[in-house]
């Protein structure tokens, strides 16, 4: 479904990614882990057309989407929840969800998606009229995921969704991802919470210093010595 081939890119003259290739198949949950500053976010940004690839290509649903504009990718069904969330803080929860469904023109489909998203995050239903700016970190993360789901994405890309959340809210986020997985939504997940991520991921990639250092099944990685030492904190 998504295919990144030999991707290289960076910021102005600073190269961040070297020869990165990865794949996400239909209905898979694929994790991307690695230390801070490895370039995980940069990979996601280049997939989404926010950072232009220098070399290599990105394919989605068989089409070459390398360097295509972000809004066109959204229309194709790629949803990206960024680290910064990029919510519309001066809008209400409901307006944020309305904007999430910007590309959906059928009222019926929109209402169905909205019901589904609100059933996934009942808290948002209670907060419909609240401004995004005044919500807690956990609620903002829920809203960011919900807004992305309003697009009825074919592939949902999440960048550190549990970052900065209380343990309770981390549970809510991971529960939501599990629920999406059970509904066969395709997810690409970047996370620092490696243990829980590998538990739910079908496959995972490890990015170190801008290159893919390892790849494999989620469960295999949980037992890997290198992963245990580096990311799971068990000696």
């Amino acid at each position, binding site marked *: 479904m998504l295919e990144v081939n030999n991707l290289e890119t960076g910021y102005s003259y600073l190269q961040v990614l070297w020869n990165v290739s990865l794949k996400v198949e239909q209905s898979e949950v694929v994790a991307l882990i690695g230390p801070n500053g490895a370039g995980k976010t940069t990979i996601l940004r280049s997939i989404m057309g926010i950072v232009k690839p220098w070399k290599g290509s990105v394919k989605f649903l068989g089409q070459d989407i390398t360097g295509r504009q972000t*809004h066109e990718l959204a229309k194709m069904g790629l949803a990206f929840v960024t680290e910064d969330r*990029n919510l*519309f*803080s*001066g809008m209400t929860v409901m307006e944020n969800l309305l*904007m999430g469904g*910007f590309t959906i023109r059928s009222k019926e489909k929109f209402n169905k998606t909205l019901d589904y998203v609100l059933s996934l995050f009942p808290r948002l239903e209670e907060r419909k009229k609240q401004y995004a700016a005044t919500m807690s970190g956990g609620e903002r993360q829920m809203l960011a995921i919900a*807004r992305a789901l309003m697009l009825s994405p074919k592939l949902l890309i999440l960048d550190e969704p549990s970052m900065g959340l209380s343990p309770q809210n981390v549970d809510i986020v991971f529960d939501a991802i599990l629920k999406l997985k059970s509904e066969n939504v395709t997810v690409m997940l970047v996370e620092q919470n490696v243990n829980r991520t590998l538990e739910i991921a079908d496959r995972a990639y490890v990015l170190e210093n801008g290159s893919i250092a390892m790849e494999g099944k989620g469960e295999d990685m949980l037992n890997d010595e290198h992963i245990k030492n580096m990311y799971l904190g068990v000696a």
Partner: protein
Amino acid sequence: MDPSQLLDVIFTGVLRGGLYALMAVGLSLVFGVMNIPNFAHGEFYMFGAYLAFFSYTVFHLGPIASIIVAVAGAFILGVIVEKGLFYTLRKRSKKQWIMNTFLLTLGISIIMQNGAKMAWGATYRGITAFWSGSLKIGSMNIANDRVVGFLIAVLAIVIFWLFLNKTRIGRAIRAVSLDETGSQLVGINLDWIHTLTFGLSCALAGLAGASLLSITPASPVMGIGPLYKSWFVCILVGMGNVGASIWGGFIVGLLETFSYMQFGAGWQDAISLTIIILILVFKPSGLFAKKGVKSVLE
């Protein structure tokens, strides 16, 4: 000041305020959505006035049709300027964006003023009235055109407000002013929204210039006054806050009229500006700067 005078101040102030609000809404919108401090806003007002003048006197269109021509013309010119200049600049570099676009709008302003002078001369081109007659309110006779102009301004502002808050495209404009990346991620085409926003802002300025043609005749430099007034309004309420700029328009209109009636014409700007400066000393980011809501400059 006796009660009847106070009533005069309120009426005159509100009528003026409608014009300032109409101008300020467009200025504020362009700053909020595109981060462009538009110093050519007054020239679109001027352009609207000329279009209405020629439609009315040369082509003998009716008042409403003349105003519509002016609004449409200002919109189209706005779209051309956006696509030709700001879009091109945006594709090249966003470095020093505010400074560069500020200089660009100054250039546009000078070109449009001199273009108008070249094309139509430096003389005033006015009409006696779109709607002749006047309305007697209290001790004052207010020209019908002023009243209709005010009603048009209020109507335009209400429609525009509904557009921004209740329609899909209007909401997209607000979304872009709040978060560009977020907007693109939900599928909004930034370039398209930018062009539309600039066009609409110019259309509102054109509407203001056209509907007050009988009161302020068309001339190449007629836009300077309204430009600065709308800047006062935007600075007073907080840059880029579209909703508040409506109230700001009325506040500035009333302040000015009050100073004018109380201290004479020579004092109106001095007094009203002093009050604005005093307000800004205590509320430096503007009267209605919202807490927690990201402003465009953050």
